[in-house]
């Protein structure tokens, strides 16, 4: 983002990069009807995994409206979000942003251990005791090999949707091929 002033530097993230295998995890995954425990490795690849700020903060609304409007649902990948919000909050996010019509689903990770495993934690200033993922996006093959990785090094920041879409399309093509 170019705001004409300095934003908060979070330091470099330490996440899995292209060619490395992303850590597997199991968390409740929420759709418009219910939630159940699902492992990342159970999802059909390629997977587009999007870490975003807790539901209710505006970035989540921005990111998922944008992903919906850009048709990320129709690219041939499994699109999943992850935040520290509870399944109940994810249900509201899905409802409030008309995401029920998409196949987007949302992992709930209130203890933030997934972000910890991915090296992308963000301790929130002024919210003592709350840590959440940095904004980050990953495109993973069937075996969770990272094809594309981006994590914010400044706060706040938003994904580069064009780059992400290109990476998803390449991953889908590679999988189909």
């Amino acid at each position: 983002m170019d705001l004409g002033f300095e934003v908060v530097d979070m330091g470099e993230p330490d996440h899995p990069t292209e060619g490395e295998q992303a850590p597997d995890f199991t968390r409740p995954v929420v759709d418009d009807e219910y939630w159940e425990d699902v492992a990342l490795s159970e999802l059909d690849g390629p997977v587009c995994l999007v870490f975003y700020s807790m539901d209710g903060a505006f970035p989540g609304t921005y990111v998922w409206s944008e992903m919906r409007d850009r048709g990320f649902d129709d690219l041939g990948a499994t699109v999943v979000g992850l935040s520290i919000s509870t399944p109940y909050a994810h249900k509201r996010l899905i409802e409030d942003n008309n995401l029920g019509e998409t196949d987007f689903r949302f992992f709930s990770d209130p203890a933030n251990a997934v972000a910890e495993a991915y090296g992308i934690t963000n301790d929130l200033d002024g919210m003592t005791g709350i840590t959440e993922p940095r904004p980050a996006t990953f495109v993973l093959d069937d075996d969770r090999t990272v094809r594309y990785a981006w994590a914010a090094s400044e706060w706040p920041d938003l994904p580069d949707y064009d780059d992400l879409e290109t990476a998803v399309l390449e991953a889908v093509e590679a999988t189909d091929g």
Partner: protein
Amino acid sequence: MSEPAITLYRLQACPFCERVVRTLDEYGLAYRSRFVEPLHSKRDAVKRESGVRTVPVIVDDNTGVTMAESANIVSYLEETYGENGRLTVETAAAGGS
């Protein structure tokens, strides 16, 4: 990871649901939990499966049974997987696909 044959639709902190969970655990049955919301109007998945919007509901692929009402479910589990039940957990596991 093999899929459990039994799916339990449940509501967090619902005592009737916990009663079913206790019975499932007692018989050593593997199950998958699907949590729904407190508002009945938001339980379309449950309605689709069972015809009602109340939980608990279990769907048992071992027998093809879908059932609501915790007392009925507990009786069903006992008759099916209990000491003198029709199926043992082992045969159920072997037959489950």
